[in-house]
């Protein structure tokens, strides 16, 4: 299950976190955190449960505001133009973010519309078939197994074709075959010049992977 995206390589991007401080309630989860990522780089955020990995990711996409510090995408603070930032962003949170009552195909079309992407019916099917969902495209998602739901999510990520991927625990619920497929997807993304930040307890081996221990 390799992903062959036919999209052209991304232009040079840079994603930077500067002096990020995160406070949840009374606790300071982390302070003065900085990193820089350029095209083709991949960052694995590791750490114990509760150390702030999810909070960091939510700061990076702009869902939460840091106590201090800033996040920059292509040299401009994401706060200055959220729309432009979101155009190039693909975020995966803890939940699959699929409408259970809609089919895989309908979910994909919804994401295309949300992302202002022109997606034809045929292309949507292609993406689903690429991830082994042939014959399952029209079933309401709640009929699919956890692994199959994850593959719909992968299809969505591939379809969105965004340069920046920020994924929270993407390897959950994937079997070894699924993991291989996803790693292939990640490697392809990096080779196209995309940037990835992800969290997870798993040991991942990708060429040129950076690790951040929280």
């Amino acid at each position, binding site marked *: 299950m390799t992903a062959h995206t036919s999209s052209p390589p991304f232009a040079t991007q840079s994603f930077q976190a500067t002096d990020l401080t995160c406070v949840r309630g009374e606790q300071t989860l982390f302070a003065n955190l900085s990193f820089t990522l350029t095209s083709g780089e991949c960052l694995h955020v590791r750490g114990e449960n509760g150390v702030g990995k999810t909070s960091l990711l*939510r700061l990076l996409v702009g*869902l939460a505001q840091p106590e201090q510090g800033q996040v920059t995408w292509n040299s401009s603070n994401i706060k200055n133009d959220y729309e*432009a930032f979101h155009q190039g962003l693909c975020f995966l949170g803890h939940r699959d*973010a699929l409408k259970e*009552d*809609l089919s895989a195909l309908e979910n994909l079309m919804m994401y295309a519309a*949300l992302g202002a992407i022109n997606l034809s019916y045929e292309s949507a099917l292609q993406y689903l078939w690429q991830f082994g969902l042939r014959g399952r495209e029209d079933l309401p998602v709640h009929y699919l197994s956890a692994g199959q739901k994850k593959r719909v999510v992968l299809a969505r990520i591939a379809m969105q074709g965004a340069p920046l991927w920020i994924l929270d625990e993407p390897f959950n619920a994937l079997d070894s075959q699924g993991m291989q497929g996803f790693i292939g997807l990640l490697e392809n993304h990096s080779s196209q010049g995309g940037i990835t930040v992800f969290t997870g307890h798993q040991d991942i081996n990708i060429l040129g992977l950076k690790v951040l221990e929280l």
Partner: protein
Amino acid sequence: MNAFFMIVQRDLLLVMRRKSEVLTALFFFVIVTSLFPLGIGADTALLRKIAPGVIWVSALLATLLGLQRLFASDYLDGTLEQMALSPRSFVVLVLGKITAHWLVCGLPLLILAPVIGLQFDLDTAALETLLLTLLLGTPVLSLIGSIGAALTLGLRGGGALMSLLVLPLYIPVLIFGAGAVYAKSVGLDVTGHFSLLGALLILALAFVPWVSAAALRIAIE
């Protein structure tokens, strides 16, 4: 505006797949209106007098029932934050959801209300006025209610808390809406009532989507 229609269509599609949720609110409306004659007595003159208030209050309560679902399902499965992270305007998406809510919860009330009105022996003029006030007023209910739904998203005791927050804000709509029908039935002029209802609708349309979007961002932080 593509995003707006997409969200309306999506929400309507989702409702069609789970019809029972919608019908519950409508049945609630019918049952509540029936409770009043049972509690007060079936004297026709009295019923005619209380009908505008009863129907309007029941409409308020039925709308509140439907509001609990407005953002909850998207919040729970994670699609709400995806909407907040999309390049499309979040305000437009929120307005789309509110519109879908009105189409599902408010518009059916307009169809049921005349039937209830007949049960309360309202004459044609009063029924017409009732329909018009509901037409102008129920969108305002959906709009204002969305603020309460957004503020209480994911909280324990959400439904009751939301009602406490939203019902005081509904009072002007109730007063002008029910008041118009009462005024019509005693032969008074109703243009004032309708102008005020219209003004409330315009104000709500202008401000509420931004307020609700801000409240949602706070809730999903």
